[in-house]
């Protein structure tokens, strides 16, 4: 099938490459050490002389280092946050230096369960160490040292990306000027864990999964695709699904006497599932969802208040009213802990029907607030 190439215009960062940083060794929170470890990353814009315009973008569950621009002129789609990153966009590459890295444990160029274990010459599979949000942050920290950046203007992310952003501000307070945390939480709800577990079970119950050892044969595509379908249900709101698909059929004239007649929403989910297996590794899906589930600031620091006690960054926290996966009250918990600690925080609960995935969509209120926040933070830092 002929693909229509995306548009490269003056608002696009244009053609970009994923680069790879290899560091000698990396010790996970679990205590395991791997060596060497690769981190895939991309950068857009230019680091200024004072090195105070760097922004780290942290991706969500299924993201990659490819946040903006195109890898080739024939690419149908740009990077996952291209709407927000580029010249004149909220993460303005004319002003800021933007960095995005694939998380450790991922499958888009960074070391993860599908990478070759140098000790055995075979992919790690389930031999890969458990990954935590903190591990993702530590790996990014190596990247920043490599790039010679001592302090970030900001770190931004939605969903799991927001968890990384918050963790950054807590663990390396001296390195973070500001945080943009979107549709995120200090810990996933029981409902969120439940849905992640159903996804994991879909993978593990696929006979092709074979306890994670499937790299020489056909992988657990059916399971991974099903996991992705479940995920996509959680990213949308009831209302948005209704508006987007309603009860319409893919083909209106088929008789209802067979299973073959597809509702548009079914077709959408199948499409998302099928598309996903081409680019994502099932074991990575298991590891990363578990990292999300285990993330718990309250538990790690004793209380929310304690968790944010040493933070120095200024925060912009954004939630969406129709997000039921990371509901607004969870963002408020973060904001309240920051306020109680006397920290600087802006919080807006944006009214939208588009659910959790709003942060990936072309949405003016989100663009405007990110853009204004960064502008002010950059002004403030430039005066220092």
């Amino acid at each position, binding site marked *: 099938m002929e693909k229509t190439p995306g548009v490269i215009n003056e608002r696009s960062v244009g053609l970009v490459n994923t680069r790879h940083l290899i560091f000698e060794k990396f010790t996970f929170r679990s205590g395991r050490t791997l060596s060497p470890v690769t981190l895939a990353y991309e950068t857009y814009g230019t680091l200024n002389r004072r090195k105070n315009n760097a922004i780290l973008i942290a991706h969500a569950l299924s993201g990659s280092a490819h946040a903006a621009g195109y890898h080739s002129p024939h690419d149908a789609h740009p990077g996952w946050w291209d709407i927000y990153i580029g010249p004149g966009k909220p993460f303005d590459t004319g002003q800021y230096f933007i960095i995005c890295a694939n998380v450790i444990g991922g499958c888009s160029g960074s070391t993860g369960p599908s990478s070759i274990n140098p000790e055995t010459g075979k992919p790690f599979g389930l031999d890969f160490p458990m990954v935590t949000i903190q591990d993702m942050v530590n790996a990014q920290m190596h990247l920043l040292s490599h790039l010679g950046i001592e302090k970030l203007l900001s770190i931004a992310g939605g969903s799991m990306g927001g968890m990384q952003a918050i963790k950054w501000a807590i663990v390396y307070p001296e390195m973070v000027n500001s945080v943009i945390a979107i549709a995120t939480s200090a810990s996933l709800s029981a409902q969120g864990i439940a849905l992640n577990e159903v996804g994991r079970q879909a993978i593990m119950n696929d006979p092709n999964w074979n306890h994670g050892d499937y790299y020489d044969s056909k992988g657990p595509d059916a399971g991974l695709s099903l996991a992705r379908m479940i995920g996509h249900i959680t990213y949308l709101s009831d209302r948005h699904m209704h508006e987007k698909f309603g009860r319409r059929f893919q083909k209106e004239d088929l008789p209802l006497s067979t299973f073959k007649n597809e509702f548009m929403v079914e077709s959408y989910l199948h499409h998302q599932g099928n598309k996903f297996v081409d680019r994502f590794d099932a074991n990575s899906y298991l590891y990363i969802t578990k990292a999300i589930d285990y993330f718990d600031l309250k538990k790690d620091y004793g209380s929310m208040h304690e968790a944010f006690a040493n933070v120095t960054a*200024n925060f*912009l926290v954004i939630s969406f009213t129709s997000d039921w996966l990371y509901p607004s009250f969870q963002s*408020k918990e973060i*904001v*309240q*802990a920051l*306020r*109680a600690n*006397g920290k*600087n*925080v*802006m*919080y*807006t*609960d*944006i*009214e939208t029907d588009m659910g959790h995935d709003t942060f990936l969509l072309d949405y003016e*209120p989100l663009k*405007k*607030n990110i853009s*204004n*926040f960064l502008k*002010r*933070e950059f*002004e*403030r830092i430039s005066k220092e």
Partner: protein
Amino acid sequence: MNALEYPGHDLIIAETAPGTKVLDLGCGDGKLLDRLREQKQVTPYGVEITEAGVWKCVEKGLYCYQGDIDEGLSDYKENSFDYVILNQTLQITKRPAYVIREMMRISRNAIVSFPNFGYFKTRLQLMIKGRMPVNILLPFEWYETPNIHHLTIRDFRDFCEKNGYPVKKERHFSITYRGETRISSFHPNMFAQYGFFILNGEGFAE
């Protein structure tokens, strides 16, 4: 600066000591906080219910929380702020007694200003016309007013006395035809359009 559009701002700015920490409850578009930062070098914080207001605050670089004003006040420690401001907002709060109590706890100075329902024109409208007053202070018809707790200057004084809140200063005022703020010290409950109180919150750290 239009005093009519932003009643109380000039007075609040005049009463605020420089370099202090200020929380504005119901800060709207952040106009007051912005002026306080500019003219008095305060560290400003705000709470605002509307998206539009909060987004304006983000634009101005003001740290603002989108929510009900009584939401999350309990997060703050005793005497966290030099001033907590409740300007033209008391009459629309759901739990005014709770809000004032929390203001007393978290601030050294609680500044409260509200449209005075005892103002003679308001009284006359009700008495002579027999209709709910609609005027420059209370520009809403009864069916669309956000005001749910009307009060007079005398009511608020009684309220403070009853709860043991020490009144530090009263600066009741009206807005003149030329749009200027004028202090009304002569029978304010009758002749001041707005009540203006500064309460001493120092001793209210529980």
